[in-house]
Structures are given as C-alpha cells and as structure tokens.
C-alpha cells in the first residue's frame, strides 16, 4: 500500500509538475505572444511616426521654401501692382487734365465786344504766376513742383489798346463795361481784371468822336483751362 501510494504520489507529483510546467510555459508563451503583439504594434507605430516625420520634414521644407519665396515675391508683386496702378492713374490724369492754350488764343482772336476792337502789344500765358501760390512757396522742397505747376492753373496777362469807335463811350467805367463784355475770357480764365489808362489814350485822326485808342492791361485770375472749356 505504501508503495502504491508512493507510486500514486509520484504520478500525482508528475501530473502536478506537468500542470505547473504547462501553466508556466503557457503563461510565458502567452506573454511572449503578447510581447510580440505589443512589439509589432510598436514597430508599426515606429514606422508610422517615421513616415509622419519624413512627411512633416518634407512639408516643413516646402513650406519654408515657399514662405521664403513668397516673402520676397509678395511685397515685390504688391509694390509693382500698386506702382503700375499709380502710374496708370497718373497717365490718365495727365491726358485728361492737361491744359490747352488754343482755346484762349481763339478767344483772343474771336471774342470781343462789337463796339470795340482789342489790339494787343503783348499776351502772356504762364504757369503759377500768383505770388502767394502754394506751389511757388514749396518749390524749393517739393521735387514735383514743376510738374504740379505744369498741370496746374495758368494766368493770363495782356496789354494793348482798346479801339473805341462809338462816341458815347467816354468814361473809364464805360470802357471797363466794354472790356467786361468779353464773354469768352469769362468762361476760359475767369473774370479778367482790366485797367484802362484813359489819360494815355491816343486819337490818331485828332478827332476823338471818330476813333481813339485807350491803353489797357488785362489780368485773368489763375484758372485751370482745359480741353472741355467751351
């Protein structure tokens, strides 16, 4: 009985060892499997991270290149576009607003009151003749004063004689009324100022009833006159 028990115990012991051994081996096997699974997951993540980092580096590189390029290109493109727009606007304004002299000469030739002829010794049309003009004051500082003056207003100054044939125009006031009827000038260069020198009038035939010449000086206000002027 003792031997049998011993045999039985040995068998149990073997079975127990087998169970323990198998359990340990299974546990280790499972843990190994788990470790392999975790390892493969880790490896997969490593690859993903590596790819992502490569991709990030590539995008970062492209981004930096593009940014560097655009940091130069954008201000340059903006500057050029704005400069071109300003240049275009300037061209348009120069073409549109440039002053013309032919209307004023035409007026000088054609428009005068029916009761008098105007004989001119001198006619001057000049830019920026007003002594208090802002442009003249800035001429030393403003590098574009000349071009602004060119596109700006003009003054007219003329002198000569008013030939009076109607005997009823005698006084200075009446002469100024004659001069004031020069409608063309009123439209082109604003209301001109006439000075007549009655004392210096000339009577060529000796008879003031027939014809006499009264010296005058005319100054027109600084006014812009352009192509659209009538």
């Amino acid at each position: 009985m003792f031997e049998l028990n011993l045999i039985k115990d040995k068998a149990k012991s073997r079975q127990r060892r087998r169970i323990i051994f198998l359990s340990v081996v299974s546990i280790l096997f499972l843990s190994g499997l788990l470790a392999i699974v975790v390892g493969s997951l880790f490896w997969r993540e490593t690859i993903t991270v590596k790819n992502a980092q490569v991709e990030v580096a590539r995008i970062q590189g492209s981004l930096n290149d593009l940014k560097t390029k655009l940091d130069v290109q954008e201000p340059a493109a903006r500057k050029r576009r704005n400069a071109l727009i300003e240049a275009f606007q300037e061209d348009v304004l120069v073409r549109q607003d440039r002053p013309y002299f032919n209307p004023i000469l035409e007026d000088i030739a054609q428009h005068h009151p029916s009761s008098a002829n105007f004989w001119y010794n001198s006619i001057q049309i000049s830019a920026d003749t007003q002594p208090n003009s802002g442009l003249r004051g800035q001429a030393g500082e403003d590098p574009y004063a000349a071009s602004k003056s060119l596109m700006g207003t003009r003054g007219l100054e003329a002198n000569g004689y008013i030939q009076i044939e109607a005997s009823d125009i005698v006084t200075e006031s009446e002469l100024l009324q004659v001069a004031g009827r020069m409608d063309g000038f009123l439209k082109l260069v604003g209301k001109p100022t006439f000075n007549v020198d009655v004392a210096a009038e000339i009577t060529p035939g000796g008879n003031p009833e027939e014809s006499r010449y009264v010296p005058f000086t005319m100054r027109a206000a600084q006014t812009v006159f352009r192509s659209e002027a009538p």
Partner: protein
Amino acid sequence: MAADSGTGSSGDWTAGIVAIVAALLLGSAIPVGLYFGLYRPKVAERIAAQENKTKLEVEMNAMIARQEFVVKLESEADSVAERIEEIEKPFALPDVEKMDVPEVHEALLRLAKLHNLGLLPERQQQLRAEIVFPAGQRIEFPHGLMATKLKIETHAYFHDFGRFLTAMETMEKFVIIPESLICTGDSNGGSRHMFRMNVYVIERRDVDAIGR
C-alpha cells in the same frame, strides 16, 4: 498519512502556484512594460507628429492661398501694364542724354514749316538755328512720369501760330503740354509777331521697370 499527504500535496502545489504566479507576473510584465514603456510613448509621438503634420498642412494651404494671391497680383500688374502701354502710345521716346525728344522735335519742325512759321529776326543769322529746340530740362511727375521741355520761338502771323498751336495740341501721336506763352506784338505795327513758347513733351515709361 492523510495529513502528511495533504500537507505534502499542499506544499507541492504551493511551490507550483508560486512558480505560476511568478511566471504570470514576469510574463505579463514584459508585454505590459513594452506597452507602457515603448508603445504608448510611440503612439503619443505619432499623434504629435500627425498633429504637427495637420498644422503644417493648414499652414501650407494658407501659403498656397498666399501664392495664388501673389499670382493674382502679378496678373493684375500685367493687365495694368498692358493698359499703360496702350495709354502711353502717344507718349514720346526721349533721348535722355541730349534732353531731347527727337521724334517730337522733328514733327514740330515739320508742323512749323507747314504753318509758315519763321525764325525770330535775331536768330535768322545764327547757324543751325531752329524754331523748335530742346531746353535742356526734364521734369518728373510724382509717380514717375517724365517730361522733356522744348522751346518754340517763332516769328509768325497770329492765325498761323494759332493753327500751329491747335495742330500741336491735338496731335494724336504725341502728348505735348504747353507751359507758357509770350506773344509780343510787332512794334512797327506789322502783322507778324514774336511767339516764345515752352512746352513739355510727355515721355513714354519703361513699363517693365515700374515698381521694381
């Protein structure tokens, strides 16, 4: 015996259970350690990299939009440049060194001849005297436009000069802006007067150089 056997049996199992528990602890420690020690930080790293990538892609999209804007700016600039070239067709090509605009100079001389304009009496004896000549001056407009000054000095009938002036101011090929005019009547009562005029000829720009 039973007690012995029980004790022996329990003692045998104890060692086994300890071994199993130890194996379990040790065995689970490896994957758990790998999981928390390697896998989780790597996942965090991957998430960070992906977030970084997403952020960069957003930045890249903004940068692409910026690039499209630059292309739009350039295209607008090209369009305005074409319009400038069109509007500046009647502007003259200058000879900067001589401060002259040869084309306009020649055209005005032809026009003066056509309208019977003569030289001023005091210049009739001068060699190579011309009615139209450069004044040696150029002026600049605020946005880069330039103009060259020419002088016109002539002895002519008022109406001839008037027609010359009208023709000059309405020339289609050039833009000429009169600056000043001094007409001095013939002191002897004749019909031919002296006209001294300054004009500016607007110059064509180098469109490619604008804003560069």
